[in-house]
């Protein structure tokens, strides 16, 4: 197994610790970015961005089901943007435990981080990455 964006997602060796994303927080203006970068994109200071653990949970900003997949992925699959409480809004995918059906996800819902294979395909099954699933245990459709 190898990690996609190995600098971005951290798998603690202690099994009691949950995985997280390695973001950057600017000590000058407080801006949090993911992935990390050396210059703060807001105040443009160089060298003020420090490591911060982020992304264990988030709130779904937007989502769609892609009916066609690029090479190395399997359609249909969810593609999402997640707002992290620490600040960044990131692009991600949805964990395999969540069925790919209309109505399963709703913008604004609480999500939690999981680390799993990028895709169940020969190209990507051995590559780990960060994905999100509904934080509520069941993840069942909520019929409005």
């Amino acid at each position, binding site marked *: 197994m190898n990690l*996609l964006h190995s600098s971005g997602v951290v798998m603690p060796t202690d099994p009691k610790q949950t995985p997280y994303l390695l973001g950057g927080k600017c000590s000058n203006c407080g801006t949090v970015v993911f992935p990390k970068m050396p210059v703060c994109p807001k105040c443009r200071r160089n060298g003020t961005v420090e490591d911060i653990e982020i992304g264990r949970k988030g709130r779904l900003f937007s*989502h*769609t089901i892609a009916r066609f997949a690029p090479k190395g*992925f399997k359609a249909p699959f969810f*593609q999402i943007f997640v707002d992290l409480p620490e*600040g960044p809004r990131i692009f991600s995918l949805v964990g395999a435990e969540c069925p790919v059906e209309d109505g399963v996800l709703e913008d604004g819902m609480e999500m939690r981080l999981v680390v799993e294979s990028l895709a169940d395909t020969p190209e990507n099954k051995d590559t780990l990455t960060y994905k999100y699933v509904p934080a509520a245990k069941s993840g069942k459709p909520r019929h409005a």
Partner: protein
Amino acid sequence: MREVAIIGVGAHPTGQFTDKSLKDLGYTAIWGALKDAGVTPEDIDVAYVGNSLGGLLTGQEGVRGQVVLQHSGITGIPVINVENACASAATALRGAWLEVASGAADVAIAVGVEKMYVGDTARTIGALSSVSELDLSQMGMQFTTSYAIHPKINLKGKMKEYGWTSADFAKPAVKNSYNGSLNPLAQHRRALTIEQVVQSRIVVDPLTLYMCASISDGAAAAVVCAADMASKFTSKTPIRIASCVLRSGEYRLPNDKRLDSATVSAQAAYEEAGIGPEDLGAIELHDAMAPAELMLYERLGLCGPGEGPKLIDDGTTTLRGRLPVNPSGGLCSRGHPVGATGLLQIAELVWQMRGEAGPRQIEKRPKVTMAQNQGGLLLGQDSAVYGVTILKS
């Protein structure tokens, strides 16, 4: 800065041209532009050649501009290769414009050329994904997805925010498919109905197949010169470049209060040209996904938030309307050979301004027009490139 005029344009039709190479596609566009301008290869002082995917798709990783130009008899001059995703051609035009405006050159050519049909669609789609920042494309980000849910446009979100429907999303596709049906250079020449667009298969919810530009081969070129020299080469109406704006995207955080980059780049172009949206007589804009046209209406200052569909309903942006948008058929019908698109837009506007657009000619020949071209996707929640050019006759 000197005033710069476009004196000639040329284009290769868009579509699938299995037997043609980048060189062949480029040759048709380049010689079309040279003849139209009344210049010879010896007159060209400098060339900018836009191409995005040729390295990955054809294997010609380096010096594609020199390769294409040599095939057309243009050698021994400065050649600048331009890669700027789907806005490569707008970027090439800016280079040519700047060379002449600055006085460094008297005559320059801008070329955009793309070869996307290589017998393996998955490879082409993969190459297209690679014009997004690698961190995104490796996670499966596609251009379709970016239009559907990306914060910079979020068409799915607009359905909730503005009450736009799938039928609203289909309107620009329908309008532009009619325009494309009149364009002999267009890739898709079938006029579509709302039902056909809505009912075509879903690619990425809420986008259906006919709302998305398809892959395409194509090329376009423009010859520019110092405006006061134009009559030396041609008796045709010179088309002046009133502004040629290029900007990279911003790193945007969720609470970003700044105007979006499409708005900012359009405002800069209006200001530099000394005009406003009310002065425009035609627009070619970047509708890689047809519904994006609705968002661009408001970002280019044509209407208020959410009012985009009205401009089609009341006929304003149709071919016979007050401000025709995408008279060529736009990216979805005319075609989107990515590195050529920006100059295909320019060629269309020049033809319209000269009254040479044939059956799709805008009745009241436009005197002021705009081309809006964008491309690429960055981690900072924005497109990578925004190009806006305003032309005056």
